[in-house]
């Protein structure tokens, strides 16, 4: 791509958070929103990009024609990003237009409000079982390892139709993949095992369809006269695994920590469980775990505000910044479980808005109607200052969360 068709970069893409408030986005966004809401910045990947930081602009630009998602996922933030390898067929988050619409329409039936509501009792049982196991073990426990990671992983197993006897192994290996402190060789091995595992699962479902997402997806594509290849099915299944696992897990632990640090808000939530759905939207807004925003290639000129974003340039929309824009959310830096926050940008916006958002909502709603009720004395078991946050990963979170009760 050609660089510097527009003005040269005048700033740097913000990546450093304040040590005092690890829940706030990286330092610098407020200044961008106030002074240069559509800015040219240099990014960690060594490229210059437009950075859009205001809520309204983020919404407008993510719905503009002339954007392509066929780019390395959040590649701007990755110093090792590979801009040359072609995208995998079946990678729904990296396709555009008709190809994207085809894949998305094959999957949307699986994530409707109605279908996800039907999973609520299963999700509740998983949560109860994991709380039982925590309470039966010795304090402290790591809420990341023993609660936040296994629950979304097992929900995905249920969706994909992973046989029960294989779920422990599957969960263990995907836990390694999403872990930050892991030996690279172990990670490569886990990655290979998951790939092999998902390929085998797809082949099994082709031979012996059962009542699950992959089997229905195979049939739906065949019925539509556009059968999916094994390679496409494997990439789709892996994308669901990756997209639905770590994002939800990090939201569970960060939200728990946020509530522990805001005892007045936690008290209100406990006193009035009807507030849980609104509180979940507020925590999605406040925490915005997709911390580096969304990366796009510009394929046609886009007029935005006083600027014209030119074809051939790169674009980053900051979801975290838009969610802290006081023009959209008064006192945006305050957590307020009474806020009507559902128009937040945490799930993105436009045609690629999170496919699994209803599932994430139900998982978070059940967790926060249960966790502090079943364990009312839940507390952090180490000083807050000792917690280590995931400043470098695409999805923000806390590495471990030792808790006691």
């Amino acid at each position: 791509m050609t660089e510097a068709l527009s003005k040269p970069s005048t700033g740097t893409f913000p990546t450093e958070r304040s040590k005092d408030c690890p829940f706030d986005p990286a330092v610098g966004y407020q200044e961008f929103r106030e002074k240069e809401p559509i800015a040219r910045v240099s990014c960690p990947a060594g490229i210059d990009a437009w950075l859009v930081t205001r809520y309204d602009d983020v919404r407008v630009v993510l719905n503009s024609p002339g954007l392509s998602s066929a780019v390395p996922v959040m590649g701007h933030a990755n110093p090792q990003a590979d801009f040359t390898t072609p995208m995998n067929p079946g990678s729904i988050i990296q396709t555009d237009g008709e190809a994207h619409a085809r894949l998305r329409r094959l999957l949307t039936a699986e994530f409707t409000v109605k279908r996800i509501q039907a999973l609520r009792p299963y999700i509740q049982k998983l949560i109860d079982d994991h709380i039982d196991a925590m309470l039966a073990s010795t304090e402290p426990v790591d809420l990341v390892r023993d609660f936040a990671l296994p629950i979304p992983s097992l929900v995905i197993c249920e969706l994909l139709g992973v046989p029960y006897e294989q779920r422990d192994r599957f969960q263990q290996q995907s836990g390694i993949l999403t872990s930050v402190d892991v030996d690279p060789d172990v990670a490569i091995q886990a990655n290979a095992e998951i790939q092999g595992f998902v390929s085998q699962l797809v082949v099994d479902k082709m031979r012996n369809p059962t009542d699950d997402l992959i089997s229905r997806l195979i049939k739906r594509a065949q019925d539509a006269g556009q059968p999916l290849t094994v390679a496409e099915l494997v990439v789709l299944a892996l994308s669901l695994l990756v997209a639905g696992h770590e994002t939800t897990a990090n939201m569970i632990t960060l939200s728990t920590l946020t509530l522990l640090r805001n005892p007045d808000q936690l008290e209100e939530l406990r006193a009035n469980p009807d507030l849980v759905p609104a509180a979940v939207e507020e925590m999605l807004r406040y925490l915005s775990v997709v911390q580096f925003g969304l990366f796009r290639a510009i394929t046609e000129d886009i007029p935005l505000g006083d600027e014209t974003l030119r074809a051939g340039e790169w674009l980053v929309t900051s979801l975290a910044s838009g969610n802290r824009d006081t023009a959209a959310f008064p006192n945006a830096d305050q957590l307020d479980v009474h806020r009507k926050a559902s128009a937040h940008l945490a799930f993105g916006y436009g045609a690629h808005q999170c496919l699994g958002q209803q599932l994430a909502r139900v998982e978070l709603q059940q967790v926060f109607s249960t966790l502090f009720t079943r364990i009312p004395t839940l507390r952090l078991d180490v000083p807050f200052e000792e917690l280590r946050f995931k400043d470098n990963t695409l999805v923000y979170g806390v590495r471990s969360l030792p808790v006691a009760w």
Partner: protein
Amino acid sequence: MRVSIDEDGCVGAGQCVLAAPDVFDQRDEDGIVVLLDEAPAPHLHDATREAAVLCPALVIHLAE
């Protein structure tokens, strides 16, 4: 208030069903929006407006 939808642009996010379940539903077979009530009663207007704002693909159009 009259509601119209652009089915082709719908991305099946389900935001409208959460916001205004009396006005919008989703097809079981592909999650695409179904308009249940094209002239919602006044007590549903706020929820319908919210659904239009939340729609990530901007396919809900209101004439008031």
